[in-house]
């Protein structure tokens, strides 16, 4: 039995049946990391001692015959912009190189109640800004499928860790595709829940009206298992929604009752023909099995990326104003103004500075209405596209990305070409709806992600539908 291939469900069952111990499971993952992460660089820091202590505690409970929680004793990798108390948390930025988190994020608190085992913090683009992890101040992560290629980003370390078998599951964050795109590039499952479904307290804010935490896993069942633990209202995140959630294990959906929408705007110029072919093959199969397929239109998709690259940097410029060289982080202290200028100028990498400046520009006097207010109006139109679509269909099928994983350096010189990799994922964040990327048939040995989009707060229904599509694409 290869312990590094286990899913959450399988590991949970084996732990309960005392076939394996959590310490064995945890050690097997650390062995893999020690052997191969020198090459992959999925992790920025490891917490082996704490992980083994947590594992031992779970093993003691099991040996006493106590029932255990679904995630108890199972290794988890956490993106380095999510705070674990006492652990180094850098967001892959030089400005937080030595920062120790003073409290737990709400998602971490919830996972601790489950007695999860945290093995380490994963690499990412600095402050979650990027689509390749090449913006990490501590060097990029490599794609385990092909180490000449990027793992995607910004949650590239989390996706690579799952593909490489370094962890059973991981948490990422998604502002414009940062969970789904790397999941697609690495051939794993990545789920961005509805905006408001999961508390962001303790997630370093990038663009607050878009950010959401979600799981990266080996399959849809596991994504649901993690989501059912981390979701829920939180007084410390006033955008988190208080609602009654269905259970993933309630009655499954019947394929003949599902109507899938296929938006024509997502299958036009820029999409690699082989990816289109594989997505269309899944759609035909679904239709053959009895699902209804309908071509739909999301007419404002064309302008989503432009609206995103106004709204996101505007929020970035406000959120990153807290890094002042005074309260924490990298500091070059002199007179007040130079303290700001130098601490921030030297502490932030190029992409962070580019987006802060872009945000400052679109919010500045004289440009505010032309850019920022206009973008918020277009955002409303994009949201309405989805509201209309979900009156007709249950889920929308698109590619996750227009291409497979690209090579290192291919897009670093031209930021706009990097931004275009987000073309199919950003609308979802602007609209606040949930979406999941699941791996389908590869192209030239490289993973392809299929994106399924659900209606607002119909996360469980989306996961159930995703399970059907996953079974069908095997």
């Amino acid at each position, binding site marked *: 039995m290869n312990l590094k291939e286990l899913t959450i469900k399988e590991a949970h069952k084996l732990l309960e049946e005392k076939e394996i111990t959590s310490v064995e499971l945890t050690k097997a993952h650390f062995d893999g990391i020690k052997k191969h992460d020198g090459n992959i660089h999925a992790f920025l820091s490891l917490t082996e001692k704490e992980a083994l202590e947590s594992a031992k505690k779970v093993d003691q409970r099991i040996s006493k015959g106590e029932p255990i929680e679904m995630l108890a004793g199972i290794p988890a990798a956490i993106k380095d912009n999510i705070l674990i108390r*006492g652990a180094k948390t850098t967001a892959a930025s030089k400005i937080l190189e030595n*920062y*120790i988190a*003073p*409290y737990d994020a709400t998602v971490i608190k919830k996972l601790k109640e489950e007695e999860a085992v945290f093995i380490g913090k994963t690499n990412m683009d600095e402050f979650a800004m990027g689509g390749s992890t090449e913006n990490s101040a501590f060097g990029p992560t490599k794609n385990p499928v092909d180490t000449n290629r990027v793992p995607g980003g910004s949650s590239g370390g989390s996706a690579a860790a799952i593909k490489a078998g370094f962890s059973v599951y991981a948490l990422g964050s998604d502002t414009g595709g940062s969970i789904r795109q790397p999941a697609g590039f690495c051939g794993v499952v990545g789920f961005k829940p509805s*905006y*408001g479904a999961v508390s962001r307290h303790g997630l370093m804010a990038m663009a*607050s*009206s878009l950010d959401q935490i979600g799981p990266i896993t080996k399959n849809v069942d596991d994504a649901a298992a993690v989501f059912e633990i981390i979701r829920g209202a939180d*007084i410390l995140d*006033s*955008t988190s*929604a208080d609602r009654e959630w269905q259970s993933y294990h309630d009655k499954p959906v019947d394929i003949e009752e599902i109507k899938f929408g296929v938006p024509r705007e997502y299958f036009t110029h820029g999409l690699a023909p082989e990816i289109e072919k594989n997505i269309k093959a899944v759609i035909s199969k679904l239709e053959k099995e009895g699902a209804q397929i309908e071509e739909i239109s999301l007419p*404002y998709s064309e*302008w989503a*990326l*432009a*609206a995103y*690259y*106004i709204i996101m940097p505007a929020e970035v*410029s406000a959120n990153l*104003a807290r890094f002042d*060289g*005074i*309260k*924490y*982080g990298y*500091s070059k*202290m*002199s*007179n*007040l*103004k130079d*303290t*700001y*200028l*130098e601490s*921030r*100028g030297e502490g932030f990498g*190029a992409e962070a*500075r*580019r987006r*802060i*400046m*872009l*945000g*400052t*520009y679109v919010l*500045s006097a004289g440009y505010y209405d032309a*850019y920022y*207010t*206009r973008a*918020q*109006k*277009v955002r*409303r139109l994009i*949201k309405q596209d989805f509201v209309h679509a979900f009156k007709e269909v249950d889920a929308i099928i698109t590619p996750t990305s227009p291409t497979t994983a690209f090579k290192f350096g291919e897009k670093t010189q031209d*930021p*706009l070409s990097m931004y275009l990799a987000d073309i199919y994922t950003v609308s979802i964040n602007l609209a*606040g709806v949930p979406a999941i990327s699941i791996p389908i048939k590869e192209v030239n040995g490289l993973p392809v992600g299929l994106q399924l989009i659900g209606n607002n707060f119909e996360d469980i229904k989306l996961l159930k539908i995703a399970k059907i599509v996953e079974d069908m694409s095997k």
Partner: protein
Amino acid sequence: MLTKTEVEKIAGLARLKLEDKEKEKFAEDLSSIIGYIQKLSEVNVEKVEPMFGGTDLESVTRQDDETKSISNPEMRKQILNAAPNREGDYFKVPSILE
């Protein structure tokens, strides 16, 4: 096309010091992105209400409870330890008045 001077002005507003050799590259990058986002001028947004924020939730309020403000001494210590420059339990900041 943004000029080097405009980039300097924006960087100043954002409190970012830039190296001289970076300024031209930033001018070029920002110009190309701004060129792209101008695409939004094609959209007719007449009578559309702007969508500020990710939800339509009303403002959420709670009681101001001072006992919840870093009452944990360990956390308090960690927060203060993170300060680059401190004196006792205070953050030390550069003087702003001569």
